[in-house]
């Protein structure tokens, strides 16, 4: 029997299971290259880890602990949670523990530090772990107990997912369209469970033209379609990003021509406008031209979805020489200290502050309604984050609209959801 072609996801999983091939639906045990947890999920994982009764973690260099959600500690309880994580890191000699001042939002930070690489299997006790698929890695979110088991054994059990192929063809990009708009557009088409349990594989001319930052944004939101992972074939852009960051060898995998897909979708980049996802699901998307009049109280630019340097550059491009509307609080959060410093050197921070924005140290903060920009009852926010569930950014009767950084910046200027073209 001739072996069937495999997808990039299947190849990476097979290699980590020590097998020549794997098939969708199979339950396999795979070796992991990195396990990640944050200040919310790590304390639960640590409690479970200690029940296992092992004296050490599987590899102290292959665990990353990033207190980023409620940090800098927002209250006493959060401080206690982070303290549990810090003490665990010290006790077990975890190399990759990132303290406030040297940290970043986990999914911006780990690729930047070269801790996640092409061809890796990465699991994280955070649903947006799928971000690393942008590098051509298999990365997926798990819970704290799964993470505890992985910290002890260096392995995780997984069901091999079916793959869906998304071909984004074309060269004719609408102005201000970014990776965020492509992924929102796709989620709008297939729904929040449109890729449930499956791998989303992105390819096509427009994807080749997309920057690494744009790919991170897209892979980040694969979970918002219910997917197990999002993944991109690595290319020269991937190589350029990884070079100088990688601290260990990595490998490029590619899908075979005759690989099997459960579904194939094809879109043309020219049909995609900047998108806005209305409350209370990321699938409630509308093109910016059909948004109508929605007044906002707050705009947030940042998060693991859109807190990278390219996002800040676009925001600055829109905000330069403009003022934030008197009725709006604009909060800008660089994803990592390195991104923050880069933005400072490029003069972007000056643009933001002169426009009347608040610039924060890296934190997940407002995205999940933690701190640093919570909404009151009845307030509306536009945000470059990933979720607009009920109560996500604060009061259960507040509303979150999702967009790219250019739309969020333009909206902050005009006080209502707006296209960047309106402020040019």
């Amino acid at each position, binding site marked *: 029997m001739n072996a069937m072609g495999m997808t990039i996801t299947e190849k990476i999983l097979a290699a980590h299971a020590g097998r020549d091939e794997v098939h969708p639906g199979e339950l396999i045990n795979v070796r992991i290259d990195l396990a990640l947890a944050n200040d919310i999920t790590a304390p639960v994982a640590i409690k*479970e880890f200690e029940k296992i009764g092992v004296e050490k973690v599987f590899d102290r260099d292959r665990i990353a602990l990033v207190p980023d959600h409620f940090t800098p500690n927002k209250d006493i309880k959060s401080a206690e949670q982070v303290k549990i994580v810090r003490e665990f890191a010290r006790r077990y000699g975890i190399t990759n523990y990132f303290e406030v001042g040297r940290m970043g939002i986990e999914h911006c930070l780990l690729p930047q530090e070269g801790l996640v690489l092409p061809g890796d299997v990465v699991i994280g006790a*955070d*649903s947006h772990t799928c971000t690393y698929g942008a590098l051509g890695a298999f990365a997926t979110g798990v819970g704290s107990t*799964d993470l505890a*088991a992985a910290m002890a054994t260096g392995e995780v059990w997984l069901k091999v997912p079916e793959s869906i192929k998304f071909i984004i063809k074309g060269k004719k990009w609408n102005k201000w369209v970014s990776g965020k708009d492509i992924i929102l557009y796709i989620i709008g088409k297939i729904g929040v*469970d449109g890729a449930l349990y499956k791998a989303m594989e992105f390819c096509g001319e427009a994807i080749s033209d997309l920057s690494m930052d744009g790919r991170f944004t897209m892979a980040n939101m694969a979970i918002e379609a219910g997917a197990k992972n999002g993944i991109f074939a690595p290319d020269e852009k991937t190589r350029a990003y990884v070079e100088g960051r990688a601290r260990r060898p990595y490998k490029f995998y590619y899908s075979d021509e005759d690989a099997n897909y459960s579904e194939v979708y094809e879109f043309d980049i020219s049909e995609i406008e900047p998108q806005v996802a209305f409350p209370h699901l990321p699938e409630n998307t509308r093109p910016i031209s059909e948004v109508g009049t929605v007044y906002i109280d707050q705009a947030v630019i940042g998060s693991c979805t859109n807190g990278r340097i390219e996002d800040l550059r676009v925001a600055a491009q829109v905000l330069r020489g403009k003022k934030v509307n008197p009725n709006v609080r604009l909060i800008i959060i660089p994803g990592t200290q390195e991104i923050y410093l880069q933005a400072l050197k490029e003069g972007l921070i000056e643009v933001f502050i002169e426009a009347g924005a608040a610039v924060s140290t890296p934190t997940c903060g407002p995205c999940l309604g933690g701190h640093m920009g919570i909404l009151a009852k009845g307030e509306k926010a536009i945000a470059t984050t990933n979720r607009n569930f*009920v109560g996500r950014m604060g009061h259960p009767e507040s509303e979150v609209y999702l967009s790219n950084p250019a739309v969020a910046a333009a909206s902050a200027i005009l006080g209502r959801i707006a296209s960047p073209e309106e402020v040019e």
Partner: protein
Amino acid sequence: MTIRGRVWKFGADVDTDAIIPARYLNTSDPAELAKHCMEDADPTFPAKVRPGDIIVAGKNFGCGSSREHAPIAIKAAGVAAVVAASFARIFYRNAFNIGLPIFESPEAAERIEEGDEIEIDLNSGVIRNLTRNEEYQATAIPPFMQELLAAGGLINYVRKKVGKECIR
């Protein structure tokens, strides 16, 4: 073994922020989390849920965050099982790992109404609606997951595995 209980009904795409809002995640104490279980979907739920009650919901239950606090909150609130048309994948794993029984059945999710009395056979996955005198079949639990359940959850399973390796 069977679970018998009264049903609280929820819609589709119940997300983890509705199950346990992030504003309460500065603790991982199950009893504290239980006080806010399902609060943003139904603010009265924590006060009215009784031990042994069962949640029935639509598709994609538990979508969103990886927070294990979500199934922990449901379990600590005394909910005996969750039946849904489908589950988001991280929630599905977490529920098994912490020992919250969950059952996937689009038919049960559609037919069962709030307040119905239902009985679930844990081994066969047969769900009996005692109020309406109907029966639904939940999707079979994969053999590996059954092994996890039999071992008493993932941590016990790993303990046994690691123990074996130490002896060898």
